[in-house]
């Protein structure tokens, strides 16, 4: 059952909710500023006198860090925790009496959150960062729309992973450990902390077969100009493939969860 106006309304409501908690928003800016600053100086120290490392120039690295964290502000959400909590306290039941898809509604709320951050957070943040740090913004205008599209897929893939992890609360009593593990795994394996080319060969060839690189590494590589020409379409296709592939386990887990949905305290 397709009910677009309702889903759009959810995006709007999540946006409102984010506005209702402005202090969170301000502290978020601070956290991201500190992270970008810290990683900038860290990489400065690592590069030392080197002009390039693993094919990354210093300028590309700086841009990579800035855009990586700004992208994270958009794709990051707590869907896993929200879903797990709703399953644990049984309020998932309330959602089941609504004529919409639970997972779709969660996804849309995550999107509302992301939209809020990209408009009021990432965009001004990126402007600020490029004033303070030597960031090279793409000069080819065509990179921008492609990057935005890739960012959308980053959001989708990251949210899919979150949903999958959150849904495990149906099968185990407490999946908090799993969630924090996932969080570190995504930050590390997506290339946010270290670009994939810096990993040992065996590790980076493993990571190439995992969905995480599609979250940060691929879009950021396009943004800094490491991937150009027809290769851009290949990485975009790769993102799309992961988006489709991840739908399968979600669907399977959701079907099983529906079967054994038992509401605690019922």
């Amino acid at each position, binding site marked *: 059952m397709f009910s677009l106006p309702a889903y759009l309304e959810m995006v709007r409501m999540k946006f409102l909710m984010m506005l209702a908690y402005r202090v969170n928003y301000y502290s978020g800016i601070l956290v991201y500023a500190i992270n970008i600053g810290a990683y900038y100086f860290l990489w400065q120290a690592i590069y030392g006198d080197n002009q390039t490392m693993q094919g990354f120039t210093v300028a590309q690295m700086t841009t990579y860090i800035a855009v990586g964290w700004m992208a994270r502000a958009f794709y990051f959400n707590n869907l896993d925790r929200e879903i797990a909590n709703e399953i644990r306290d049984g309020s998932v039941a309330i959602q089941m009496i*609504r004529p919409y898809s639970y997972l779709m509604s969660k996804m849309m709320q995550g999107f509302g959150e992301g939209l809020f951050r990209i408009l009021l957070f990432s965009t001004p943040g990126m402007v600020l960062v490029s004033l303070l740090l030597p960031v090279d913004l793409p000069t080819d205008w065509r990179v921008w729309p492609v990057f935005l599209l890739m960012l959308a897929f980053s959001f989708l893939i990251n949210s899919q992973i979150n949903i999958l992890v959150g849904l495990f609360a149906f099968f185990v009593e407490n999946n908090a450990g799993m969630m924090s593990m996932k969080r570190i795994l995504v930050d590390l394996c997506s290339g946010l902390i270290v670009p994939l080319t810096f990993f040992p060969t065996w590790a980076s060839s493993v990571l190439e077969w995992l969905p995480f690189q599609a979250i940060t590494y691929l879009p950021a590589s396009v943004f800094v100009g490491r991937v150009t020409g027809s290769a851009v379409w290949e990485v975009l296709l790769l993102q799309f493939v992961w988006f489709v592939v991840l739908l399968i386990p979600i669907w399977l887990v959701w079907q099983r969860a529906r079967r054994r949905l038992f509401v605690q305290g019922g």
Partner: protein
Amino acid sequence: MDAIRVHRLRKEFQVQQNREGLGGALRDLFDRRYNQVVAVDDISFAIPQGEICGYIGENGAGKSTTIKMLTGILVPTSGEITVNGHVPHKEREQFVREIGVVFGQRSQLWWDIGVIESFRLLRKVYRVPEQAFNERLNELVERLQLGDLLTRPVRKLSLGQRMRCELTAALLHNPKILFLDEPTIGLDILVKSEIRDFLLQINKRYGTTILLTTHDLQDIEALCSRVVMLDDGRIIYDGGLDELKRDWGKGKELLIQFGQPCSPERLRALTADLSVTWEAVNEFTLKAWIPLEQANLTEVLGRVMTLAEIRDLRVLEPNTDDIVKEIYQTGAGKHV
């Protein structure tokens, strides 16, 4: 036509069983043991359209489980359910458009933003046309006096205010069937009676079928013509409220506070032929249970008054739990 039909409905849960001690916990890691618990055990009933039916029973009797199956949240282990012509868990999205649900202990409103935002979302979710929605909302706002609450965040509402908003949220799309799971829990008397009046009015005006669970017998008395009583997953009574009270509300309980210390023995002796049972609460206060078939209130009180001065007197209404307990203890229900 029946709004709700349930035939031989059954729900079993698997409950994890934890072993004792550290060694047990370690063994649990690799080899979990489960217990099969029957929450709802082969129940059948039918509720005609436009009826208000009370669904009562002790905690853990299976009320909420039944409601969850009727609303499509839980999939039954076996048996058949038809609600409003649909099988709830199979045609969920289509089915839930025509029902409204309120869980007294859980909010379905968005916690951090104005109530009106939740209502607006519901309008889109249920695809209510703008004009119909506004008319309906105005009517509900006026009836439940929600005027200045609408823009307030839900977390800043009192329980009574919130419950009125929950009811509004459940009724905005004019559902044919309304499920209420303990709608008056924790509310003060004023709000309770307001909500009861409101439900009666909705039922009369729109012919809404209402199924409600409650622990408050006054809810049932005010609203329901019919009662389904559940114990341990089984229906132990299904019928009119009047019959229930006539058959089972056989006595009255009195709480009497005397001006001077009174022993239950003396009172027992005084009312020996009336088979009144006495129980001391403290030195001055006693509890009496008077079986109305053998004794009447005036008689008992008349005799007691000759004994000592009465400071305070209260008639305790039998509550649902007591009646359920009584029915269960006599083992009468099983073959209803």
